[in-house]
């Protein structure tokens, strides 16, 4: 077992687990962040997409050791609850729970609602996070770029078109901000 201090959604959380434990189990079971969904367990559906340092990753394919390769790093030094030192790399994880700030929806979330991009909702967290990574990198994507960025996120309900429209609408709002 290893102690990890995880920087997640702007907070630091401490958990103890095997380095081989999958991030999705850490999120859903240990941290009870159940907004990250498990649809296939092999990285094919994208429902478990989270952002690690802003990049979309499949939480069902990422082990703790992949995020924290060196056991000496964000390992706690003084036992539970004490300060830890993140000296070299300190990955930031964002899940769907961390996207809205102070109860205010992120523009992408609002656009998903406004454009009718949500049906059963199971793919929605992964879709929204993938869209965020895209807009952070390329604030004015074309329809084709949006399609490509979302190609790893399956949706069985919407036929995707209203999702594309939501990402385009969100891009407009994000770009309007100073």
């Amino acid at each position: 077992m290893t102690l990890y201090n995880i920087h997640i959604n702007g907070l630091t959380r401490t958990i103890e687990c095997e380095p081989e434990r999958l991030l999705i189990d850490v999120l859903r079971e240990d941290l009870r962040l159940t907004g990250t969904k498990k649809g296939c367990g092999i990285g094919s559906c994208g429902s478990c997409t989270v952002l690690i340092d802003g990049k979309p990753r499949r939480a069902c394919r990422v082990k703790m050791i992949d995020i924290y390769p060196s056991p000496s790093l964000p390992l706690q030094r003084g036992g539970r609850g004490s300060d830890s030192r993140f000296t070299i790399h300190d990955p930031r994880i964002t899940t769907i729970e961390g996207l809205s700030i102070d109860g205010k929806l992120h523009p992408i979330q609002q656009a998903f609602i406004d454009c009718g991009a949500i049906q059963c909702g199971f793919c929605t967290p992964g879709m929204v996070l993938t869209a965020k990574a895209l807009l952070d990198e390329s604030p004015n994507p074309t329809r084709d770029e949006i399609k490509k960025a979302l190609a790893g996120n399956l949706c069985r309900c919407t036929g995707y078109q209203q999702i594309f429209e939501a990402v385009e609408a969100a891009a407009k709002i994000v770009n309007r901000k100073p």
Partner: protein
Amino acid sequence: MKRVDAIEKVTGRALYADDMRFDRMCHAAPLHSAHPHAVIRSIDTKAARAMPGVIDIITGCDVPGTKQVGGIIADQYVIATDRVRYCGDVVAMVAAESADIARRAARLIEVDYKPLPPLLSTEEALAPDAAILHEGRKDNVISSFRVRRGDIKRGYKASRIILDARFQTSFVEHAYLEPESCIAAPEQGRAVTVYGGMQHPFSTRRVAAAAAGLPLSFVRIVQTTLGGGFGGKDDTISVVCARAAILATRLGRPVKITYTREESIRESYKRHPFELAYKAGIGADGRFRAMEVDITADSGPYCSMSPFVIWRPTVQCTGPYAVPNVRCDTKAVCTNNTFTGAMRGFGSPQHVFACESFIDVCAERAGLDPWEFRRRNFFRQGTKTHTGQKLIGHKVAIAQVAERALKELGWKKKWALCSRGKVRNDGTYYGVGFACSYRGVSLGAEGNDFCSSIVNIQPDGSALLEVGVSENGQGLKTAMVAILAGELGMNPDRIRFVDTDTSSVPDGGPTVASRGTLVGGNAVIDAADKIKRIMRPALRELIGPSRKGYLFKAGRIRNPENRKSVAFEDAVAACHRSRIYPYALGVWKGPRVSWDEDTGQGDAYFTYVYGCQACELTVHAKTGKVRVSRVVAVHEVGKAVNPQMAIGQVFGGIAMGLGFALMEEIRHNDGMIENLNLNTYRIPRSIDVPEMTAILVENPDPVGPWGAKSLGEPTNELMGAAVANAVYCATGKRFTKAPITADQILGDIHG
């Protein structure tokens, strides 16, 4: 109005069954059959029980109630006892402290099977010497229907052309993104509550109560947020919930079962593969004189919803065309492949693929273009269908939707540009195609149409709303809230939709057959009418008597006779003060429908919807890859309660239809599914979908709530044939097996 469940879904707060956790909860996992057909001689669980963390293992003999269950015929074991009939049959359930331990322990269970020869096709199952899969039956035909109308021989005699064609479709997976999941929690006083993601909590309750040997009142099913259904979250999730309920009652602990994707695909039912034979006679005027249709469906080992799945194509076998002489025979046949049941359309995507491909073949042989041939044969107002039903009481809108779709696509010009087997300079073939359908609304004469709702107005004027049909992700809650808000003039934000709880609202029948809005909406309207009647004495006191009734609008209630009004909240408060409770049970019963089993004659459905989808595509000559670039869909819906959500249904139906048309096929090898996860069973991705245009045509129906009819399924039944017809116009080759894969196309172009 925006979705009422949108914020929780977009923030990750919506609770799906697997997101829930209970104190003292344990986990259970299944052991599936290793054979498609075998006798179970014995099961040894000793080694599995010895694994640390294992709590309990149950087999078929531990099922305390009914051993076999099923929506129509009780032929599926809750847990197999003496015999397995497909590789998805469950032979044991292991309960453990973690799901991982349960799965590892399941692998240690030793089952001694005596394999039996499996029936792996309907042809084998129909052979005269075939083994009978279920004792007590005379053959393997689990359900059959027929239509006899007019005189086929005379029809052929009056024909100038007689032609026939055969078509085939494949096993298709629902691929809801949320695998089956539920938690059963024991309650005080012998009761058990099961929280789960199912389409129809009431059928789950019937199955779970029967299997657990409990009265219905002692089993409570609460629907959690459903991560997709499409017809697939009924039989299988019901049995999964039953197993959880049995374990929870035995152990006195909450039990969670969450399937992996592989377990889900292995055990859950699929879309029936169909074999269809069409034959028709066409007169010199380009009009049908006769049609014969034979359909054989592979039901797998269990009945499930097979009768519904083959009955609908029986009723709709001619497509929206007038044919005076018709013979139709349909049957569902038991095999040892994975069992099949309801999936978006109830057999219609399979049948429309064949029928509308055949119509294009007929048009060409008759020397007419696909539009002109259809136009001559379309149903008109008052046409008698082949079941003898006169199409009246609603607008027969098939020509209206088809004309609109072709105009929007620019079909005439594009039809002239089709490659017809000649490769273009860019190495592709180009084609356009379309398909038309009509569709009976709701369950029809094979079912029983009804629904209920409860409206409970609280002292502050806010409302609790329950409906006997359920949210499947399609937006049912939002539509029901909108209808209640409209009827009572309330602000929708003041209405709380309570997720279906079987211990509260009466059964509303299954949320299938595109019936949710229609039946639920009508039940809500009935409850709202009753609320208005209940409030009448209080209103008389507050704003005077009115013979014309009172108007509920924009938060106020008006007396049209004296123009006095009162705020809705104040009127409700006055009711509560005088112990008049604005609480009502709304009930809706469907209009009369009829069906004669011998002749297949009757008014099969009380109303119909009409649709047309047209597409434009290219076929890459070297790779055989089809790229659909544009789809126009026109659907007559009666009335769209929420146009944005209705359009979402259309886009979703098109995408799923494209999967059916071009890529989706569950492959069995000796009865075992080969593609058990989403890397090998591919569904359309964002980069696979075309630019889509959805047009809703509204002809309000007298039966529907605010005139609304159906939409979810008709959107899913047209792409198969539209694509097949476009591929034909592109390559000059007619493909009769769905999906039309690149391999199939390459084989034919170069072979």
